[in-house]
């Protein structure tokens, strides 16, 4: 062979060098097997970024989930039925005028640096949000009605509100240690990544590598008792297909946000269990019932016919929800009617048989005939000004439902003389257009919390944009005086049963108006390695989710399976890897010999 190495040799060298590290799992595997004897690790795939580790700033679901594990709350939704139970607070009482709340803080809770957790920490957290604008970024609305927060002594916290707040036990605010956070100068830029992060939740954050992984260790001093697992890891995956493959290889133990197709594929895999949970989300078809600003000035360019409740009711009757659940969700969901999903049993409302808008194209056509929208020659109805009933329907490109459901809706509405122009666009574009009232129909969806206050609030008149067109948080410009009165009443109603009735009345009114139509409630689809974990604490129990709960029960209640090995390595034997490297070397050597022989050939041999 010649001394001068050819390009080929270099390439072979590169390939060999790149392949060689396949030895690594052999090496690392041995290491993890050793540690696995003593510790149980739960590995979770995350497909969403972490925007911040600062609980006052973080708004992503993925980050919020982390905060729930790191910091305890004053009260939180229980695992069983999501009703409020004590976290840091062991009991609470309200004054006769319903404006003063007195919480008794437990005295057996400590921060992970052994400092005691007191009422001062809670008061500090809430007051920080009252005083510092940046601290209100994530959860500011919870303190918007607070008059004052005072720690009367180490275990007594007194909060005074300006108006009665039935939602005071649903404060979704992680409590932070005063002795750490009082040193922070600028909340907005504080990254909270000094490891280990001092907290009081069931897990302690010990390592964070952006977009790579997060490591948490079980808090040995957790006041409810330490978790059954020793370590919790979140591994970042950028697409859910890769996360599903990682579950198959055992690189992760738990994935969520699966699609129906992914669940069907995982259903019969040995060692994997599927959790089809009732979801917290509803999916709706929103109309433009006459978009306007807060003071009632019309904005946008919605079709005037949609201001007629009969037109909206006709549309509501022209949608076959059973078909949508079957064809769009693959059966993983429930047909919708009431506004609050059935997973929240206390607040879910179901229309009676005579109220229900059943799928009935004839009835819808009849309703439109009576309402004075005669059918035109081209099969499209016209209104009193001879404007054809032709509606734009917007959907998001990043939500597969919209394209599929959009086709169905277009066909059904075509049957009742309404023409639909389906436009699928980027989510940001859709939000912009609907926010400006420049739409007729649009698909939308919301996640609902155990306390229904917020999701009812987005349907009140005051959520419409201000005079300059900004600052609107309305869902779809619904505005109804009676609805607003009921909304104010339920917020001030401290009797749970009476409040439930008010919330039901609101949903009935909303359903009747058909301003936005709930189409279905999709299931939350999760899967886990049942060969490594026997069970998780779902919320609600039974039938609920493991991940993205309103609480930390899912991870905290993880039960390792009997005799489960700690290391879920994608099993590759070192021998196999060595064989592979051997093959590469042999092939490379052979190629080099061939090349060398060919190089000795002259032009004569070639021709």
């Amino acid at each position, binding site marked *: 062979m010649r001394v001068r190495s050819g390009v080929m040799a270099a*390439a072979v060298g590169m390939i060999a060098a*790149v392949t060689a590290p396949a030895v690594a799992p052999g*090496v690392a595997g041995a290491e993890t097997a050793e540690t696995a004897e003593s510790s149980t690790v739960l590995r979770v795939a995350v497909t969403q970024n972490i925007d911040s580790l600062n609980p006052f700033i973080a708004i992503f679901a993925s980050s919020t989930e982390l905060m729930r594990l790191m910091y305890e709350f004053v009260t939180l939704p229980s695992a069983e039925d999501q009703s409020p139970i004590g976290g840091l607070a062991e009991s609470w009482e309200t004054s006769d005028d319903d404006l003063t709340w007195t919480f008794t803080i437990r005295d057996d809770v400590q921060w992970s640096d052994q400092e005691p957790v007191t009422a001062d920490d809670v008061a500090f957290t809430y007051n920080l949000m009252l005083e510092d604008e940046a601290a209100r970024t994530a959860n500011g609305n919870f303190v918007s009605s607070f008059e004052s927060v005072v720690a009367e002594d180490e275990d007594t916290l007194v909060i005074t509100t300006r108006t009665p707040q039935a939602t005071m036990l649903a404060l979704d605010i992680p409590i932070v240690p005063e002795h750490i956070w009082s040193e922070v100068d600028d909340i907005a830029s504080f990254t909270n990544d000094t490891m280990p992060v001092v907290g009081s939740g069931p897990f302690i954050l010990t390592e964070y590598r952006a977009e790579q992984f997060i490591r948490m260790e079980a808090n040995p001093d957790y006041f409810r008792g330490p978790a059954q697992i020793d370590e919790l890891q979140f591994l970042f995956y950028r697409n859910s297909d*890769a996360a599903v*493959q990682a579950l198959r290889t055992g690189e992760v133990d738990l994935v969520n946000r699966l699609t129906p197709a992914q669940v069907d594929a995982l259903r019969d895999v040995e060692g994997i269990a599927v959790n089809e949970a009732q979801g917290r989300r509803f999916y709706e078809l929103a109309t433009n019932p006459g978009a306007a600003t807060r003071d009632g000035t019309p904005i946008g360019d919605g079709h005037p016919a949609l201001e007629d409740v009969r037109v909206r009711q006709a549309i509501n009757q022209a949608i076959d929800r059973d078909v949508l659940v079957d064809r769009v969700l693959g059966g993983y969901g429930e047909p919708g009617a009431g506004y609050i999903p059935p997973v929240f049993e206390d607040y879910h409302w179901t229309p009676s048989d005579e109220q229900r808008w059943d799928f009935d194209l004839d009835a819808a056509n009849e309703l439109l005939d009576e309402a004075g929208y005669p059918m035109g020659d081209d099969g499209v109805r016209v209104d009193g000004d001879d404007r054809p009933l032709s509606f734009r329907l917007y959907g998001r490109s990043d939500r597969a439902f919209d394209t599929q459901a959009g086709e169905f809706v277009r066909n059904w509405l075509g049957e009742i003389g309404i023409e639909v122009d389906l436009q699928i666009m980027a989510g*940001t574009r859709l939000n912009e257009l609907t926010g400006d009232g420049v739409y007729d129909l649009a698909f939308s969806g919301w996640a609902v919390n155990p306390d229904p206050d917020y999701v009812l609030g987005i349907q009140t008149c005051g959520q419409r944009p201000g005079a300059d067109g900004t*600052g609107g948080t309305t869902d779809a410009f619904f505005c109804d005086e009676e609805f607003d009165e009921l909304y104010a009443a339920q917020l001030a109603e401290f009797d749970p049963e009476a409040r439930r009735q008010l919330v039901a009345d609101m949903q009935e009114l909303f359903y009747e108006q058909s301003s936005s139509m709930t189409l279905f409630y999709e299931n939350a689809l999760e899967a886990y390695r049942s060969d490594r974990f026997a069970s998780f604490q779902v919320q609600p129990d039974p039938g609920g989710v493991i991940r993205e709960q309103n609480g930390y029960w899912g991870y905290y209640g993880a039960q390792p399976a009997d005799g489960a090995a700690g290391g879920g390595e994608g099993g590759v034997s070192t021998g196999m890897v060595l064989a592979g490297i051997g093959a590469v070397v042999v092939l490379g050597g052979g190629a080099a010999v061939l090349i060398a022989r060919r190089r000795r050939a002259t032009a004569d041999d070639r021709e």
Partner: protein
Amino acid sequence: MSDVLAPSESLGDAQDSEGRSGGGGLVRYVASKIAGAITSLVLVILLGFFLFRVLPGDPVQTMTRGRAVSPEQIAELRERFGLDLPLWQQFLDYLFGVLRGDLGVSYFYSRPVSDLIAERFWPTVLLAGSATILAVLLGIWLGTRSAWRHGSRFDKTATGVALTLWSVPTFWLGLIVLMVFAVGVGPIPGMFPTGGITSPDTPPGVIPYVLDVAHHLVLPCITMVAVIFAQYQMVMRSSLLEEMGADYLTTARAKGLRDDLVRRRHAVPNAMLPTVTLIFLHLGLVVSGAIMVETVFSWPGLGLLTYQALDVPDLPLLQGTFIVLAGAVVAMNLVADLLYRFLDPRVRAS
């Protein structure tokens, strides 16, 4: 990836018009190229601001959707991001910021954009760099062999395979590679991780860390090489074919040189010129080309950061990544321009 500009250099421009040889012409040539690059960069900075201002969507609206916020909170956020200022004022703030080397603070991550970019810059360089080196070596080698025996079965196979791989969607190919080599199909065991750049369970120490990263690098690297090597192969093949008819090769053969030497010493160096240009033009674009691969293999790089920022839109982050990515293209174009003058004797000669 294929919209590559030809080098702006034509033979005529390179001739020193005043007939002076060497120094002065070279300095002027280099100076003019650098000035051109600086002009482009200034345009990039100006464009960076206005380009993303036309994106639909209100960042504050996107960030507050699905959470209870009061109109006051929305106003506070707009004020914090400076979105309540008139556009000219926002533009001036941005401009002075860039000139100071301050790219602003990301809306979403509440961290300086330069930190975020620095964090994700090296993973991308590692992936795109190693893939480019491999693709160039492979492309040149296959292209040379194909051209030398053009029409042979080897040529047909190599060209066919390369063009096929070049045409398949990166995302699809990546998922196939992931299924076969990470999960395992039939007799093939899963040998590589399904994603990421490191494992949390790697023992401490430099050598395990390097092995771990390399182990994670294999699949994304293979995928990226498979998709891009064809361009180098095709260019090398066609430029070598052009050289093969040349008289000097006949002369070389007539001297009785071994076939291998004729190819290596005479034909390939001349055929390398267009390929080298292409390599440098592509180097600037390769970072953006890594987006798809980064997404499939969850590689924590720059491409992904940009892609996710578009959804908000996170204006400071988009502006920052745009300046970095476009700046890379400008810089590499400059290098290609300068290099060409030194590589090609015909450009130097006057």
